[in-house]
């Protein structure tokens, strides 16, 4: 019941960083939903076993390394932003976006190969005039493995593109205005999250038997 003003320490996390962490937490739950569904599917059909052999583990592996390196460049951009070094910040951001584009390119190459062999997200789609398509026997259970493959990698690809756009916009705006340096940190944070999602997706989609 004292009447003195009390000193209360508010959180010293800047509001932008806190919002980004909350966003990332929310996104983690989205990906968990997708991954859990996929894992349940794999457990239900143990006979699918070596279905992952159909994927090119090398392309997936190279993509993993590319994303890991891009996280390093993103963090370097953040470090440069902390030093308010606009030139270095821009360079590292461009490098990150470039690596992201290489990732998208390799992914597109992989997808086109699968689509070319009729391994699409579902039968009857992109195959004009046919109600059902004969699926390779290895899939056994209709469409689901490639449904999950395209769903999960597609969702991730969407995040890569959004992350690259966020990085580019914040870099350009910070560079031209010389203000709001924290934007670089936020988009780099998001980029690292996108990278970590791939670290989960890669073994589960490409390697697990």
């Amino acid at each position: 019941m004292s009447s003195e003003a009390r000193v209360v320490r508010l959180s010293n996390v800047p509001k932008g960083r806190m919002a980004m962490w909350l966003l990332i937490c929310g996104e983690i739950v989205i990906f968990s939903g997708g991954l859990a569904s996929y894992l349940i599917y794999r457990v239900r059909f143990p006979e699918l076993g070596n279905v992952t052999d159909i994927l090119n583990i090398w392309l997936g592996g190279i993509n993993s390394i590319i994303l890991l390196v891009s996280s390093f460049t993103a963090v370097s951009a953040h470090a440069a932003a902390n030093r308010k070094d606009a030139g270095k910040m821009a360079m590292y951001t461009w490098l990150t976006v470039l690596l992201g584009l290489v990732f998208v390119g390799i992914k597109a190459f992989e997808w086109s190969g699968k689509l070319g062999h009729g391994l699409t997200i579902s039968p009857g789609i992109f195959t004009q005039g046919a109600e059902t398509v004969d699926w390779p026997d290895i899939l056994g259970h209709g469409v689901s493995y490639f449904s999950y493959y395209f769903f999960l990698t597609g969702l991730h690809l969407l995040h890569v593109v959004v992350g690259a756009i966020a990085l580019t916009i914040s870099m350009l705006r910070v560079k031209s205005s010389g203000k709001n340096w924290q934007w670089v940190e936020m988009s780099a944070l998001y980029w690292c999250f996108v990278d970590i999602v791939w670290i989960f997706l890669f073994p589960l989609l490409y390697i697990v038997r």
Partner: protein
Amino acid sequence: MADHGHHDPGFLGKYVFSNDHKVVGMQYLVTGLLMAIVGGYFAYVFRMQLAWPGMNIPLYGQLDQSAYNGFITMHGLTMIFWVAMPVLLAAFGNFLIPMMIGTDDMAFPTLNMLSYWVFFLSTVFLIASLFGVNEFDRKTGEILSRGPYGGGWTMYPPLSAQADMLGVGGYGAGKLIPHLLSGGNLLITAVALEFISFSMGGINFLVTTINMRADGMGIMDLPICIWMLDLACVDFMFSVGPLIAGAVMLLFDRTLGTGFYDPNRGGDPVLFQHLFWFFGHPEVYVILLPAIGFVSDITATFARKPVFGYKLIVYSGIIASGLSFVVWAHHQFIAGIDPRMASFFSLTTIAISIPFAVIVFAMIATLYKSSIEFTVPMLWALGWMCTFLVGGVTGIYLGSAGFDIYGHDSYFVIAHFHYTLVPSTLFAGMAAIHYWFPKFIGKMFNDTIGKLHFWLTLVFFNLTFFPIFFYGMAGQHRRIYQYTIDNHPSMVQYQPIRQFVTYMLIGLIATQALFFLNMIMSVFGGEKASKNPWKANTLEWVADSPPGHGNFHTYPKVYRGPYEFSVPGRDSDYWPQNEQ
């Protein structure tokens, strides 16, 4: 000075695309109330069909079976996602969070405005889905019938996952558009947009509360209302993800012909139930927790007594929010889940009633030996306690798997969740509207009409939903168009009760006209409200009624908790948080 400099933003900037949290809150509130009329209309139409099957319903006409299914689906979705959530969480979260923590606006005002406009877009999609394509000719693409999606508000596959409209030739020219504009697809899009809107709002609410509290306001000085609104945001944001993924998968099943949920194509229909209820059950608490917050605050103010067990209520809320993530499968006891899992989920479900029981006991203890002022908001708050209790207690019945196997999908369930959700939305929502209306509009409600509205609603509400327990116990199955001697012989005898319930529902809906009348009369001709008409302690009562842009003239400083009523040795029986 917290007053913002004056620059005229123009009509659009001030009332339509406004960043001001109060205007955004008002937009949510008005949209929610309008959607309540829509949702009530659905209920009226299908209740008429149940009471007098095949009749020519006034204001609608003959209701056929697929339209009946569409109306029950849309009633559920509209009431939960477009009434309860925008009114309780979004409208009052926007109004109250910045005002109660003593700041000038949300942490991200533009994001706040965006969240409303995404929500508005979702409302447009919802309404469009009422006129979605039901059937169309696969050869010519001609539309044969239109109507809302009728697979139930939970959208269970495999029914919802049918891609039968894909037809021969897949995406041939001219056949794409009618297929994509089916009621179900529009509905899923609407729900997805709503989730995006509330996630943006949730981030905003949490960051605002954590980072922008007034000087001297620790987290244990927050009004319970703010605690509960924030816990509701946490529950929402961290449970909705799997359903977002699940909804995209469902949309793929419907539009691309994947087989995530269709057993004929290797999918698993129960998977969707898990993804849905992992969100769907915390969603119940997203609606309930704000209601608890409003009622606690209002009870303390009109009992002129500190809230009994402030920390107890807060910790109970935290425990309940945590537990709410592990109770979801009690919706699926008869869906073929492992019986061992059923025991686990029975246990957690019954365990989660403990924190809520603690909260209600704490509210009753607040009332004990207090000098209660029976104002209109207090009546609504007390009404919430009495009616919610029935819903909570019947929840314990349904939580135990043994009873649920009998009660599942019966009208007992219907009566149970209407006794939880309607009190939370209608009673606690009305309590909040009547309590904070003087602050945000600057006018007092008419007391006589308000009391009449409350008592009539209380009577009609109980007469509408209580009889449903009886024919629910008798085993009447839900989502049935008509109970005849052929399909449900033992249910025909309950026709008089069904008619009685329909009469009472019409009474309940008609009574709400009093509220709209009262609101319009008060806005245009009501008595002007003073700064602190209820003599309450929290910070929003420090600002003008209505508060200007920027809320406070000077940022308030906080010296004590929010519930210091009737402090011994003090002349006035309340002690605002900002007074030394």
